[in-house]
């Protein structure tokens, strides 16, 4: 690859970041996330910090075409992409649905259906340049019309369960129609679309990499995407048996646009097999030779899979378990109760018991050190005695707290560890474990429960999604005017250092208000049978099928 890219002059902020990398105040990974989010192409981004771009073909052995890869995964019913609430939904449909942009394992953002994109200085006007020559598998060309159709669908706040709407507030008429503002999207030509945001939003394009943002055909209207699989991708669904098996096969009648851009796809067939939530069943399947790769390996099973000779890939992430309080529910409406429980729990112990120490200790404010705008040093050391005193002051010393969790092994273990710490501080705790089918019905309503959160590349993204007043996924009922105002301010600051000052205050508010116990940041792991390549664990659970190949 050469330095000639389609991107015009790099965004000024990107140049600034590059200086920071050279000065050593910014890590390479963070730089890649931030620079590519602003529209700097990956080779150009590497170029800015004086490094050659890594080329896939140069790493390791040459990929071999052909073969069937079998992976364990929980298989859920296919439904409208914008309502997806599980990465698993997306991973099956990624076979035939592509994305505008794709988040890479190294933290950079790469264009897929977008060839490139640029933002103006204050990140309010974004120009999207569509990739030329992309065809849908029904023969249509991929054009601006498709992009507008998708944007309109994402911005529809009236659709039940559409989580994309909250991500595109700057393109929506939030107060009025709850739909996309017609003046927000300008079609320049068939392959250029310009977005006019109502407020600065640095995460606009990054949000298009999120898993519910699969790009659908302009004729798509919310039906089961696997029933009539029109997409730009290289595979087609063959079997779609929920809870049993989902199979993707190479589409022989379709020339995938990505072959000449990235290379691949290699595999003829990808089979997803459901083994339930019990990792022991997955292990048994691996030892029986029924699968070639795990979806995710957790807890004690990481060592076990290592010991049977499977190859491990690791992704350091900002994924976590949020043991959160619902602030509208008794007795958690009292901030002293929340703070007392926070004080009672030593996150180090929770990490050790709940996740085998495979991660980093977190600080109860849901902003991760790998986020560019993370402000260090904002934490509160555990103090069981003070916790007890505070709880007595709140008058809840004898109250029984019920901690609800999913029956997933590491989540249940983590909550058991939290409960044990609370008991050590002298509180009464009852544990309830619910199966997934029951748990997710009311996940935003439980008074005290644990929710798994995947990582988002930027710290503000997660705060926007989960802690802003009144948003769909706000499960804590946290509503704080000062917090909302500061968050809006942070959303407009493209420079991470400047944003960090606001972030420090946001983190402090999260901590003072006792919003949640957020014990650790998980590292994610996947194991593959020796001979499987390219299927490394991705920090946001994405499956990039076209990179996968197997030795025959």
């Amino acid at each position, binding site marked *: 690859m050469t330095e000639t890219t389609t991107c015009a002059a790099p965004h000024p902020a990107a140049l600034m970041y590059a200086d920071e990398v050279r000065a050593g105040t910014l890590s390479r990974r963070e730089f890649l996330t931030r620079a590519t989010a602003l529209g700097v192409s990956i080779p150009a981004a590497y170029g800015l910090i004086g490094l050659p771009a890594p080329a896939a073909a140069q790493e390791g052995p040459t990929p071999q075409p052909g073969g069937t890869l079998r992976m364990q995964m929980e298989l859920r*019913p*296919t439904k409208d992409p914008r*309502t997806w*609430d599980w990465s698993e939904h997306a991973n099956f449909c990624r076979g035939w649905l592509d994305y505008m942009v794709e988040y890479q394992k190294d933290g950079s953002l790469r264009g897929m259906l977008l060839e490139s994109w640029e933002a103006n200085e204050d990140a309010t006007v974004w120009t999207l340049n569509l990739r030329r020559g992309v065809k849908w598998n029904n023969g249509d060309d991929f054009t601006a019309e498709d992009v507008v159709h998708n944007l309109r669908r994402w911005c529809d706040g009236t659709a*039940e*369960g559409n989580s994309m709407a909250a991500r595109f507030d700057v393109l929506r008429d939030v107060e009025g129609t709850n739909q996309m503002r017609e003046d927000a999207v300008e079609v320049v030509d068939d392959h250029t679309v310009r977005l006019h945001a109502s407020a600065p939003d640095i995460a606009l394009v990054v949000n298009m990499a999120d898993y519910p943002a699969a790009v659908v055909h302009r004729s798509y209207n919310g039906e*089961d995407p696997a029933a009539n699989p029109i997409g730009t991708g290289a595979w087609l669904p063959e079997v*779609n*048996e*929920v*809870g*049993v098996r989902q199979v993707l096969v190479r589409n022989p009648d379709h020339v995938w646009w990505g072959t000449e851009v990235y290379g691949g796809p290699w595999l003829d067939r990808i089979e997803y*097999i459901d*083994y*339930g939530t019990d990792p*022991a*069943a997955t*292990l*048994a*399947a691996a*030892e*029986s*030779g*029924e699968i070639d790769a795990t979806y995710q390996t957790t807890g004690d099973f990481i060592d*076990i899979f290592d*010991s*049977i000779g499977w190859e491990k890939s690791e992704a350091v992430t900002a994924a976590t378990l949020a043991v959160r309080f619902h602030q509208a529910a008794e007795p958690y409406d009292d901030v002293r109760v929340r703070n007392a429980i926070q004080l009672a729990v030593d996150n180090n112990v929770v990490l050790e018991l709940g996740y085998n120490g495979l991660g980093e200790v977190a600080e109860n404010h849901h902003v991760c050190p790998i986020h560019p705008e993370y402000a260090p040093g904002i934490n509160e050391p555990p103090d069981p005695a003070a916790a007890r005193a505070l709880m007595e002051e709140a008058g809840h010393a004898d109250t029984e707290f019920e901690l609800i969790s999913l029956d997933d092994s590491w989540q249940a273990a983590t909550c058991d560890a939290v409960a044990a710490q609370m008991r050590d501080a002298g509180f009464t705790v009852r544990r309830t474990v619910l*199966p997934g*089918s*029951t748990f*997710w*019905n*009311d*996940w*935003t309503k439980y008074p005290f429960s644990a929710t798994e959160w995947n990582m988002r590349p930027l710290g503000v993204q997660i705060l926007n999604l989960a802690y802003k007043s009144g948003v*769909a*996924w706000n499960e804590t009922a946290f509503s704080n005017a000062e917090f909302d105002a500061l968050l809006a301010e942070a959303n407009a600051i493209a420079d991470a250092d400047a944003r960090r000052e606001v972030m420090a205050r946001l983190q402090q508010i999260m901590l003072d208000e006792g919003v949640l116990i957020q014990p650790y940041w998980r590292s994610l792991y996947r194991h593959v049978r020796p001979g499987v390549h390219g299927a490394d664990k991705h920090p946001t659970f994405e499956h990039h099928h076209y990179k996968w190949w197997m030795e025959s």
Partner: protein
Amino acid sequence: MARFILVRIATMLVTALCLTFIVFWLTNIGPNLEKIARSEAGSRISDAEVASWLERNGYAEPVLLRYAQWLGVAPGWTRQEADGTWRGRCLGPGETPEEAPAFCGVLQGDWGFSRVFRRDVSEVILRGLALTGALMGWVMLVMVPGALLVGIVAGMREGSRTDRVLSTGAILTTATPEYVSGVVFIAVFSSSAVGLRWFNGSATSAMDAITFQNFTLPVMTIALYGMGYIARMTRASMAEVMTSQYIRTARLKGVSFGAVVLRHALRNALIAPFTVIMLQFPWLLTGVVIVETLFNYKGFGWTLVEAAGNNDIDLLLAVSVVSVIVVLLTQLISDIGYALLNPRIRLS
């Protein structure tokens, strides 16, 4: 005989009717319907949206009426949307009530649609039954001869050392539930930690092709638990027969011990175990559920767990109908067989 069978079949139908109504009622109580609405329309919808979703999808009608619709004795609900399209129980996408049949229930052969698996219930049930049939077939093949052999050998000479050892073994297997023996089998025979790796600890691949490797452990796990019980019944029956007058007479006539056992004792001793084996079928269902879940074999038991866990109403109803039929049919066969084998009993 014909009258007896007719009465039994009538009872069976009434039982199935009552049971399905109970299941229907339990799966349709308020919180369960709310759960369905939330899992279908999104977990974050408001209570008003839940109510309107239930209304729009025909869940708001009285339970009895909807049960009648499920049975196919009342016409399926229909509803015209604001945009003029029709929705209804019997309507396909885009159909109007005139085009579709008025009734579509079990009586018309329509078992409904599985919410979880997104396909027709009959299809899901048939797939599950075929897989479980294979499993049960092998279990019976292993369990019945084994149990009978153990029981006969033990009961042949009651009180002997062989009897003591075999009986204790039989008690031990009945005291070992499937979830203990299955777990131990997986650990010992299939894990790399112990290192034997003789068999597969997962039976998922057996759904496509049964091999000795992938099917031994699930079959053994169920067979072992049931074996002890049948063996003990056979032993008791055998021991009773061996002390009876005609066996003594035969022995005194000088017939050898082996010949007495084979020619005279066996037939009478097998009547009681036959009943037990037939009655085992429904009892084994619990074992099947556990083993299919443990070994991830997606048969009928696994389908039951998924349907119940997700409150998949149509599927759950079909599952209960099938299991009721299995239970009652085996009872019927056991009664008839008992009468045929035992000349002293006459059905009346």
